[in-house]
């Protein structure tokens, strides 16, 4: 087990390295001179030159890359051009709200999505299935930013039940996590259904029924455990969707998280912040997929770690 995790972690190194190179090159592909941007519009050529030396932009590309990697490993991403504060501080303040938003969205959407998926598979082609799948196909077709605006209009503005923007209390989390999780719940429902329909036709399900087990036990014990494997993979992939989706949802709800920070940074061409955030988002996604892979073995011991 530990050996498997270590092997997988080593396998991540090349991917991480290429992602790092791409993120590093981002700055050099950006239109305009980063030093000029950092120095501000009124800076004299001398100042721009000083800033260039200060940022290390006068050195060769490989030297700059080493410096970037060294900084990234120690958590030093330089200073934000916009606020002049260290990028690590900026992101540190924004990390928790995004993290909790994603976790809550994942929690409700997986529970709800799997519930709908299982119900649809068990009552296949009858009304719970039709209702569930209609909901699901609508869920994947409704863009998050539109759903967020509708929910905010109804529950915060018209009914005045919930706050509109901000992230202060648990009430603030309800609408954004609903918005963020809707598409994932829909995808999970569709996926769980098809996975479950396959499983319910397996021989061991027939055996379980034949030996007189009650239907709920057949579904929960024999079906769920086996259907969970593909569903888990899907969950890992959907985490990426949530991380990306949080960018849009945070803008709608004016959420003080990393997504809004990224959009503001792109707006202001605040490239140290863009670099750090893109790297962090990818790292998070890669790690979550690793965790999902490890969870496989816990759910199904027949899958041996190779």
């Amino acid at each position, binding site marked *: 087990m530990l050996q498997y995790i270590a092997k997988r972690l080593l396998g991540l190194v090349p991917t991480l390295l290429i992602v790092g190179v791409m993120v590093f090159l981002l700055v050099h592909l950006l239109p305009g001179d980063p030093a000029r941007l950092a120095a501000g519009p009124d800076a004299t050529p001398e100042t721009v030159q000083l800033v260039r030396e200060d940022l290390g932009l006068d050195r060769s590309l490989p030297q700059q890359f080493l410096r970037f990697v060294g900084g990234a490993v120690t958590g030093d991403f330089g200073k934000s051009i916009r606020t002049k504060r260290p990028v690590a501080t900026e992101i540190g303040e924004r990390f928790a709200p995004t993290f909790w938003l994603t976790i809550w969205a994942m929690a409700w959407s997986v529970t709800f999505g799997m519930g709908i998926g299982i119900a649809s598979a068990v009552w296949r082609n009858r009304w719970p299935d039709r209702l569930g799948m209609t909901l699901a196909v609508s869920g994947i077709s409704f863009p998050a930013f*539109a759903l967020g*605006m509708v929910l905010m209009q109804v529950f915060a*503005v018209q009914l005045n039940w919930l706050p509109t923007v901000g992230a202060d209390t648990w009430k603030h989390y309800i609408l954004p996590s609903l918005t963020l999780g809707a598409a994932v719940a829909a995808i999970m429902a569709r996926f769980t259904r098809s996975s479950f329909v396959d499983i319910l036709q397996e021989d061991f399900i027939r055996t379980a029924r034949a030996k007189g087990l009650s239907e709920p036990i057949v579904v929960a014990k024999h079906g769920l455990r086996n259907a969970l494997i593909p569903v888990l993979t899907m969950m890992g992939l959907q985490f990426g969707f949530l991380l990306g*989706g949080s960018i849009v949802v945070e803008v709608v709800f004016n959420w003080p998280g990393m997504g809004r920070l*990224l959009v503001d940074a792109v707006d202001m061409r605040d490239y140290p912040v*863009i670099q750090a955030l*893109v790297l962090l988002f990818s790292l998070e996604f890669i790690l979550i997929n690793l965790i999902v892979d490890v969870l496989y073995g816990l759910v199904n011991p027949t899958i041996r770690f190779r």
Partner: protein
Amino acid sequence: MFPVAAAAGPEAERVRTPWSEFWRKFRKQHVAVGAGGFVLMLVVLAIMAPWIAPFDAENFFDYDMLNSPPSARHWLGVDPLGRDIFSRLLMGSRISLTAGFVSVAVGAVIGTLLGLVAGYYEGWWDRAIMRLADVLFAFPGILLAIAIVAILGSGMANVIIAVSVFSVPTFARLVRGNTLALKHLTYVESARSIGASDRTIVLRHIFPGTISAVVVYFSMRIGTSIITAASLSFLGMGAQPPTPEWGAMLNEARSEMMTAPHVALFPAIAIFVTVLAFNLLGDGLRDALDPKIEQR
């Protein structure tokens, strides 16, 4: 894996061609047929938009009716600047449909080629291409598109490029998997044994076998791409005001949500209905093209 399309060719001059088989199964799915009809109607509307739009979408301002709700004169109401929402939605459909279709088409062509090469030659090509796909997959969701727009600058053309890149790895993986499965089948081996070149084998014998999977994925992906492109415009990175792009219209409508919710409502419905139609069509195509479905 997809013998329906694999059997295609001029020799199959029987009554039950793959096409007629597909049509027989597809026709039975009334929802998907309806969705397909709706998509066709949308395409026609989008093409005809400049002639059927009652008002100029960008330059007509009805100052007496600012924020007014739907009426006989303005079917879907007027926005805060006095522009006719119905005309703007019509013109916006051209942008959204083009963005969705072009980006997926570019992604599908490049991804399919890469997938064929990776699956057929394996070895070094395969490792390089799949590593590239892994790296592109390492950027979660819309993030890759945002990073690309950050480099290229905002604007609809750059959004289309960004969404295309976003589609490439999925098609590459899909086609690679199918190619790996198909190339060991007997008919491919017999083609090789009579001395067919690699190019002939890949293009004439393997590629047709992957088409059905690509078609299904293509239609599913258009919905996602329309949403992604609209999201980027919503974030201010795509089409810029006064362009009547649906996502950009929603962004403009945000500040008026309290006073005129209908300004946001109609673009939201437009995106939803369009994407829903593509998704339902995709579901129907999948059920008609996937040979596994019939056994259930």
